[in-house]
């Protein structure tokens, strides 16, 4: 409303006469204003990279590459190795993707191929509800309700698997805790399901109707049609959607900070407490008032920024390429 009013006063009616060669001042300045707003995106991204790298420089210079990528994290003795956090970030994100991938694909296939349109709407609303539950509420629920409940289940699984060759490396071991890698992975899986579902649904919806009808005409069942017509067409796009979900899972902070158990250890035991990069930044930033400690936390932010940018760029590239190919076909 107010913008319309401003533009009205800026552009007098007569200046828009067809004989005017130069575009009126108001018209040109509006274009510049829009351009400036668009450029803000590039400026912010550049400033993020520059200012955070500057603030974390002392971490890289005092510790060196070997110090940064060491397992030794002991702020009291000036040891700031980021490896336990990188490990925790990758492990929790991997658990989240392994759980969220089949669920998301299942729901998006359900919405596109099985349920009629008027019933699909309410299901989409439910997924949107899941998406707007704030991260900190998942964390609160995770630490006060889910983790105590899972503690007992973890314990019985761990003791039941005691001595079983492969499984006990992941699900056995001592020091089983309700707040652990696995709990964090579960919460992250729930949190990324809406985005992975809606992105893969968009991709699957672009499968041409003629492909589906062709498969049905050959006598395929619905499942055979999905395998033969839908999947080859949407494979790349779904991979892109999963990558974007992976990026979200790696950057998710508050829920992970509350349920991951806050222990800077590297272990294959998924039921043990761990730590991730965003979680340690959020939990320990208050204590890191000066010096290398703060630089190390901001430095992990830089690592996280670089990793998520790379993941997003490659996901975008994959989705774009598949979109172009399907348009050309």
């Amino acid at each position, binding site marked *: 409303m107010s913008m319309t009013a401003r533009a009205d006063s800026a552009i007098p009616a007569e200046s828009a006469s067809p004989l005017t060669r130069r575009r009126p001042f108001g018209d040109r300045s509006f274009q510049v204003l829009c351009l400036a707003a668009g450029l803000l995106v590039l400026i912010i991204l550049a400033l993020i990279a520059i200012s955070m790298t500057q603030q974390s420089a002392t971490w890289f210079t005092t510790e060196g590459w070997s110090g940064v990528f060491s397992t030794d994290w002991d702020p009291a003795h000036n040891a700031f190795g980021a490896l336990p956090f990188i490990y925790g970030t990758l492990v929790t994100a991997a658990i989240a993707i392994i759980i969220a991938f089949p669920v998301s694909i299942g729901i998006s296939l359900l919405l596109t191929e099985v349920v009629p349109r008027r019933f699909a709407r309410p299901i989409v609303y439910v997924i949107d509800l899941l998406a*707007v539950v704030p991260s900190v509420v998942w964390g609160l*629920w995770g630490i*006060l309700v889910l983790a105590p409940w899972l503690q007992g289940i973890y314990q019985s699984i761990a003791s039941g698997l005691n001595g079983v060759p492969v499984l006990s490396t992941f699900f056995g071991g001592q020091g089983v805790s309700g707040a652990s890698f696995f709990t964090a992975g579960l919460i992250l899986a729930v949190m990324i399901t809406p985005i992975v579902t809606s992105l893969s649904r968009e991709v699957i919806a672009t499968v041409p109707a003629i492909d589906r009808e062709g498969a049905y005409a050959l006598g395929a069942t619905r499942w055979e049609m999905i395998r033969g017509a839908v999947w080859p067409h949407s494979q790349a796009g779904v991979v892109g959607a999963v990558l974007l979900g992976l990026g979200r899972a790696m950057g998710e902070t508050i829920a992970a900070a509350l349920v991951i158990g806050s222990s800077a250890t590297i272990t294959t035991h998924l039921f043990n407490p761990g730590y991730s990069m965003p979680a340690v930044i959020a939990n320990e930033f208050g204590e890191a008032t000066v010096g290398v400690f703060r630089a190390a936390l901001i430095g992990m932010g830089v690592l996280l920024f670089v990793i998520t940018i790379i993941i997003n760029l490659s996901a975008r590239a994959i989705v774009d390429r598949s979109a172009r190919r399907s348009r050309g076909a």
Partner: protein
Amino acid sequence: MMAIASEQQTVDLREPSGWRRTKNQLATVGMWIAFVVMLVPLGFVLFTVISKGASAISWQFLTGSIPVNVLPVTYGGVGPAVYGTLVITGFASLMAIPLGILGGIYINEYGGNHLLARVINFFADVMTGVPSIIMGLFIFTIWVLHFGYSGLAGSFALACLMLPIVIRSTYEMLRLVPNSLREASYALGATKARVTLTVTLPAAIGGIVSGALLAVARAAGETAPLVFTILVTQTINKNLFSGPNTALSTLIFQNATQPYTGAQARAWGSALTLIAIAFILMIVARLVTARFARYDH
């Protein structure tokens, strides 16, 4: 049920045979299971938040000052946090929504196929995937280190988060407006700015407003960008521009690790308030879309 004509036929062309049919049914069952798997945590978390939070909610809870953690939920409330959330998110929206709409207008109306517009569009998309914690750290390094903690810094961080979302949704909505509408206005001699502001933008306004509201809903629940920028306090700070502030999300984050039942009850009450705010914004967004959508997908 289609096997009527199969009496004389040697091969039944209509019904898939046993194993194929079973596989198909198994796949359908699998999809429904996936849906139920998603419903369980959602139902569980909503049930817990409502059952534990509803008893805490009262006018006094929403407006009273935050007491010490040991006191039960019947004392005081979370007024400063409600105030902080509304003001910080509100100011962030005031910055991010107009700028985001202008950015979206640039990409779709002025950019055309120019490299710069494509680059901006691409990076706006990439920026939506940047974790919210990065925005908090960024504002910390660029603003808080020089000017100190304040609600304003929190607003900046949330605005950075909302900007790319608003840009992208505006762009998507403007793309749906048919070109004939623009051409008709140009034919009447209108300038580009005038066409954009009085014809194109109003035609897409429903989708743009609902996209902006969803961005606000997302920002209102964010914690990570605020932890580094507002330096959580317990008392009300009416000055957005200086001094530590507080918000519902950061209050929940703090109280979640408190052993006291009073503090935890305040966290559940705040969680319910926060979810209610987000849901209301989402429902309003849906209504706006339904009411004003002229060019839908």
